[in-house]
């Protein structure tokens, strides 16, 4: 008679059923398990607390304020007005101009947040360790200077008797007081300020691409230009999309301190953007309801934009592993 061979050579009977009762006995108590699981969350707590305190709470409060009429004075009463504030926002005569200016700021910054940084990062890629550190420090310094200080220095440069007019022999052109040049003038400062940051981000993105790909492409007979077009730039796409997202969402905030110090939105609202408009309603006109409603509208619009861009980034991101 054939007998199937046992799995192990030793044919001893299974050991005593000690395992059956052990399960519940060794299972740790709820409190004990909680204590074991807690530490990671405790580490997150400070950051979460800040996020709630500075972002989510104001957001909720803005939503509340947007349906009231209130002039920010603790003594005066809040009156409920429903969606009237939103209606006022959309009918504001200044909104169109501010939104358009915001768009100009975004479009004007894109060359300096994407195109130029990519070129600089590509050109300086082969620099030695030392010279790279030096040039990075140089392009990054503007980012570290406080925007208000930057604005002060640039105002002096833009002055009718300032360096620019003397340098280019433009007479006494008043850059910040002319409707035609005020916005580009503010834009130029902002671009100068953020270029270093953008170069750094793009350089980091570039160095994150394994050199294997370019080498493989070279072995495959591709020219430098082909490698750039078919390999390097496509692989850099996630980084560039990130910079696009940053520019679209944050250009309003980057230009805000410059506008505030240099032009206060003028002349004739030619340099104002949506954030500056919002701030004016809230803290100049003390119309908190209108400001909150405007804030929520902008929040919604930028949220949609961001969602679209993130979706785009996901589609074009390639994780090389």
């Amino acid at each position, binding site marked *: 008679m054939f007998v199937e061979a046992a799995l192990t050579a030793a044919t001893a009977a299974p050991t005593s059923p000690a395992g059956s009762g052990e399960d519940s006995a060794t299972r740790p108590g709820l409190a004990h398990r909680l204590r074991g699981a807690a530490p990671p969350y405790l580490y997150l707590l400070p950051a979460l607390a800040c996020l709630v305190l500075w972002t989510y709470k104001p957001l909720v409060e803005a939503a509340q304020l947007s349906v009231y009429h209130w002039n920010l004075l603790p003594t005066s009463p809040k009156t409920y007005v429903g969606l009237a504030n939103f209606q006022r926002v959309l009918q504001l005569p200044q909104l169109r101009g501010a939104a358009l200016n915001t768009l100009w700021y975004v479009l004007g910054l894109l060359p300096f947040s994407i195109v130029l940084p990519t070129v600089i990062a590509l050109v300086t890629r082969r620099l030695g360790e030392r010279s790279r550190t030096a040039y990075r420090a140089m392009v990054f310094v503007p980012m570290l200077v406080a925007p208000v200080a930057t604005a002060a220095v640039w105002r002096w440069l833009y002055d009718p008797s300032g360096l620019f007019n003397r340098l280019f022999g433009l007479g006494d052109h008043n850059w910040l007081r002319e409707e035609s040049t005020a916005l580009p003038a503010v834009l130029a400062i902002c671009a100068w300020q953020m270029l270093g940051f953008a170069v750094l981000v793009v350089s980091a993105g570039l160095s994150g691409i394994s050199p294997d790909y370019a080498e493989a492409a070279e072995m495959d007979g591709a*020219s430098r230009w082909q490698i750039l077009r078919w390999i390097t730039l496509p692989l850099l796409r996630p980084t560039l999309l990130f910079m696009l997202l940053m520019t679209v969402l944050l250009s309003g905030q980057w230009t805000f301190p410059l506008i505030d110090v240099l032009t206060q939105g003028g002349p004739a609202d030619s340099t104002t953007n949506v954030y500056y408009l919002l701030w004016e309603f809230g803290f100049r006109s003390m119309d908190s309801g209108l400001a909150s409603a405007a804030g929520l509208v902008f929040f919604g619009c930028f949220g949609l934009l961001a969602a679209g861009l993130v979706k785009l980034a996901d589609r074009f991101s390639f994780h090389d592993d």
Partner: protein
Amino acid sequence: MKLLYTKGGRVAGIRIEGLTRQFGSVHAVEDISMEIADGDFLVLLGPSGCGKTTLLRMIAGLIEPTAGRVLLGDTDITYAPARDRDLAMVFQSYALYPHLTVERNIGFPLRAARLPKREIAERVREVAGQLELTALLGRRPKELSGGQRQRVALGRALVRKPQAFLMDEPLSNLDAKLRTATRTELSALHHRLRSTFVYVTHDQVEAMTMATRVALLNGGRLEQIGTPTEVYDNPASVFVAGFLGSPPMNLLSARISERAGRLRAAATDLEIPLWAGSDAARDVTVGLRPEHLRVVRDAEGSPAPADTAAPADTAAPADTAAPADTAAPADTAAPADSTARADSTAPAGSAERARLRGVVTGVENLGGEEVAWCEIGGQPVALRGPRPVGLSRGDAVTLTVDLDQVHLFDRTSGRRLAWQPTADKPSPQHTPSTQRLPQRPAAAAV
């Protein structure tokens, strides 16, 4: 595309002359010269960090040498850019373009060469068919398994029929089974294409099975180049001997001396009678392949116990009966012939046989074979044979080996020693000893 170096569609081969590359003070590759004939499957073999990748990348044109030349056919390509060399490379990481589909990855070299779209599609489909990738053409690299990625990388190299294929450990990311299968496929591919392959690996099995020639590198230097059989059977140096084989060749320190007109190599518990002749005493390293060692059995067939005159398990140096553990050649107390009588079943001519006495320290089961680890005069020695070898831990054993399977290396230089009979002596041409030690000079091994 400008294929600068094509000569009537075929190239004569790759020649390397004194190639050197330093990284700062590190000599990654040092003065390597070799000839890679057209159609060769040359494997660059060596331990990690020996400079294989650096050498391959210099051939590829991805790094420039500090000194030396690379020639493709008659053309000096030392400083030609990689894109003009028409060599295909398979990277260890495969370097598949992550944003392109399999189809576009494979077609990339053709696209770079600006071939018409239709022709590209055609050739990609052809290569994909050969490599069984047709169903995967639409996928991106991250949606592929390791083995499939490896095939795509191979396809990208194959698609444009290059002058030579360069491969840097292409199988190291595959599991053992897939590696074996791919090895066979690569060999078949080489056979079919008859093109030149330069293949980097640290795996000696890959080298032995696929190569037509093996180049062994050590510390940036070329130790030996030859067919797998040559490098295995006639290792040019202690390094090669100790690198190839599993377990590798046993290397034992011994001293050569002359007694009564015959040379012999001896150490503690080790006695190898060599050939008639005379030479100055010298320190050598004796090399013995584990599979060439045999256990000397007594009449009953059990391992002959080490005879009482020379208890093998005593490593005590003061034991007068054991062969001198000192390098001194004279050991009159334990003549080899007295121990030779113990093995009645050993083949004839036992007085002429090498003799190692020791203790078994462990036995490893490899499935079909067993490896017995012994200690001979304080030096570890492995013996490999079909299972069972009939030894167990603690056994005292006497081992023997045919004289034509004894390798001798100079102790200081590590180079192989070959015996050249001097003219004034009657030539020992037909003694087994000269046949086993090839007459070609040691320098034949580069």
